[in-house]
């Protein structure tokens, strides 16, 4: 398999606190990797450093062999990294279609006119928002806002998709739909890094998992094995369960 993302000794300090402590892992093309860990273990910080939202304090991030650490977020986006956010971020004053057009217009292809519209509609179709392009974003339900965020991420033709708790807060039916949606992307060959707490989703989607605790990597391997490792169980459930 070809390596798409390589993270080497990645570190993030906020003042005296080291939120991410020399993390290293890789993701191959077409892989879906889960990034797990208790709250506050530094998962979102890792994601933020990959997408360029936060500068790293040390270490390297390579996308297809190119160093992207220290690059501005928009330049990383154009190189094929797209993401969703833990607290869903849609563009409230714009229509559903415009939300997605924003990504299609400034992504690697820089589409405009009919092409950008077509691309946006196709992405909306893909996440199950077909025919709703003229609705106002602020009026969408929570799951639909999440779908919209995913459509926007897809519109920039990502090589690597970062999903930050995209399945959190969904009811069981919505969750099943959500998992199905990500499975479809997987089948199409998308490479996904998934920060997630929903275990059913992790088992269904991730062949491999990286587990963090208190800023350090404590496990990395095939999902079934990783989830039963004593240190992982201890991190999630406490000493007595290990």
């Amino acid at each position, binding site marked *: 398999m070809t390596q798409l993302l390589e993270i080497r000794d990645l570190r993030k300090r906020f003042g005296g606190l080291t939120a991410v402590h020399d993390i290293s892992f890789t993701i191959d093309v077409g892989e879906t990797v889960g990034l797990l860990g208790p709250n506050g273990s530094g998962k979102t910080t890792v994601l933020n450093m990959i997408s360029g939202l936060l500068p790293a304090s040390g270490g390297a991030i390579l996308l297809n062999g190119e160093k992207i650490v220290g690059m*501005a977020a928009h330049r990383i986006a154009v190189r094929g990294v797209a993401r969703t956010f833990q607290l869903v*971020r849609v563009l409230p*004053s*714009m229509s559903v279609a415009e939300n997605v057009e924003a990504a299609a217009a*400034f992504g*690697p292809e820089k589409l405009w006119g009919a092409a950008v519209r077509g691309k946006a509609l196709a992405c909306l179709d893909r996440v199950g928002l077909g025919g709703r392009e*003229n*609705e106002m974003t602020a009026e969408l339900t*929570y799951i639909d806002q999440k779908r919209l965020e995913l459509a926007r991420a897809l519109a920039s033709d990502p090589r690597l998709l970062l999903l930050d708790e995209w399945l959190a807060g969904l009811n069981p039916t919505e969750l099943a739909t959500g998992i199905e949606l990500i499975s479809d992307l997987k089948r199409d060959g998308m490479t996904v890094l998934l920060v997630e707490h929903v275990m059913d989703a992790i088992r269904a989607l991730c062949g491999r998992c990286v587990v963090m605790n208190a800023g350090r990597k404590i496990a990395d391997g095939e999902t079934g094995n990783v989830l039963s490792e004593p240190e992982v169980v201890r991190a999630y459930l406490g000493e007595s369960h290990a």
Partner: protein
Amino acid sequence: MNGRLALVFAVALVALAALAFAPFYLGRYQIGLLIGLTGYVTLASAWALFSGPTRYVSLATVAFFGIGAYTVAALNEVLPYPLVLAAAAAIGLAVALVVGLSTLRLAGVYFVIFTFGLAELVRQLVTWYEVNVTGTLGRYIFMSFGPEQIYWQLLALMTITLLISWWIGRNRLGLALKVIGDDEVVATHCGIDIARTKLALFALSAVIITLVGAIQAPRWTYVEPGIVFNPTLSFLTLIMALLGGANRLWGPALGAVPLFLLFEWLSARFPDHYSIILGLLFILIVFVLPGGVAAFAERTFGQRKPDPQTYGAESALSRDTADARR
């Protein structure tokens, strides 16, 4: 070009022609009014060019306006007029780039305060320079042309400003600005270079504002920092754009025309209480028409676009409520 657009262009062209010929039929006082009107429509439109979509509320209008006026005052006897205008635009551009690079990372109220301080700083710098270096505070501007020429120049600048604004609104740049106004984090993750986009628009807006100051300068004959760096101009521009609607092409003009005429009347009628009334009006407009007249009209008389956008606060609010649902 579709039919409706062609009609709008035709109407605009006829209106422009009528405005261009107006000085031949009007007296000096009315021409003075037209100069004020076109000046403020241009200022408000230029202000909205940057501040409308990005929601960066700038109070630096008078800094650039004053720079334009002072450049003319300083250079009108040294250089031919077109070169004076070019010099004013270049100085405005240089200041805008320096200010933009250092401040566009500031968000919200900090940006507002900085721009307000900037205007004051420029005024103090010019005053200091005049007193300590040139030894005089005031300067005279003698031009060989009359108010009609000033008016025609402003009319041309206004037309160019509206055309730029129209062009940006239909362009990728317009979309980028809207996304930035909604959420800068999303914008940058969509691949938008937010720093460059904001800087470009801030500079463009500043150059136009500088030119308004430069073109209007000969109206004063005598110029000193207290006159051309009067902060009221920044507030008037802001309130006009807000009243009309800073996110619509015609919004700033819709606000500028009635407010300018109202201010003219008020300042003539109540010279002592003028600023109190101005303040009350400002409050009233923000409360009653937060999205401006243009958005209000669209909401009231049939909705063309699915865009009930109001200025600033409401969209932030809707994001908060979306977050709160988690």
